[in-house]
């Protein structure tokens, strides 16, 4: 079946512009995560959605970052007034249900470059 998809695959923007990154999780997966992969920083958690519950935003690095998930499916990560330090690969993952044991399935990522 179809995996997690993300768009765009690459995004180049100028400092100060806003960007939107999209994630389509695996159908039926109620949990959705955003992570950021930066050179030298590894993978860091950004935000978590589970069904209709309030999202866990504890990993968002600043108030310039926000995310929403419409209808319990597609999610959009928005970065306002982008800065050069926002340059990274943004990965989306989804998993089935609330179980602790379920592995997360990752999309191919969006590579964001802020000039």
């Amino acid at each position, binding site marked *: 079946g179809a995996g997690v998809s993300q768009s765009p695959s690459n995004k180049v923007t100028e400092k100060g512009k806003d960007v939107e990154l999209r994630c389509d999780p695996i159908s039926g997966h109620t*949990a959705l*995560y955003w992570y950021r992969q930066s050179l030298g920083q*590894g993978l860091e958690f950004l935000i*978590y959605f589970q069904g209709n519950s309030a999202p*866990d935003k504890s990993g968002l690095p600043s108030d310039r970052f926000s995310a929403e998930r419409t209808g319990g499916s597609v999610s959009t990560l928005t970065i306002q007034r982008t800065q050069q330090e926002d340059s990274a690969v943004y990965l989306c993952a989804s998993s089935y249900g*609330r179980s*602790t044991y379920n*592995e997360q399935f*990752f999309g191919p990522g969006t590579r964001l470059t802020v000039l």
Partner: protein
Amino acid sequence: AQSVAQPEDQVNVAEGNPLTVKCTYSVSGNPYLFWYVQYPNRGLQFLLKYITGDNLVKGSYGFEAEFNKSQTSFHLKKPSALVSDSALYFCAVRENGGATNKLIFGTGTLLAVQP
């Protein structure tokens, strides 16, 4: 703080030889441990996980990992390496005590298998 350490930035091994990629963890409570692999310009792919039970866990592509509670380790192993195994490997632990199932990742180990 809960954390994962991958002490080797890179592991070099000749094709056909056994390989080990090291991972140690620090977590409160029972650890739920995962290994993921990332091929160039691709998202992370799940390899295997330890939840409970047998300390030796078998996963995809002939990989296995050994959970050692006393040494707080979860090393990834394969009896005979292939050139196609060359990739970036991430160890991760589920964060305990939170409402999410977010993963805490190590910094990754680049595996290079020489023909």
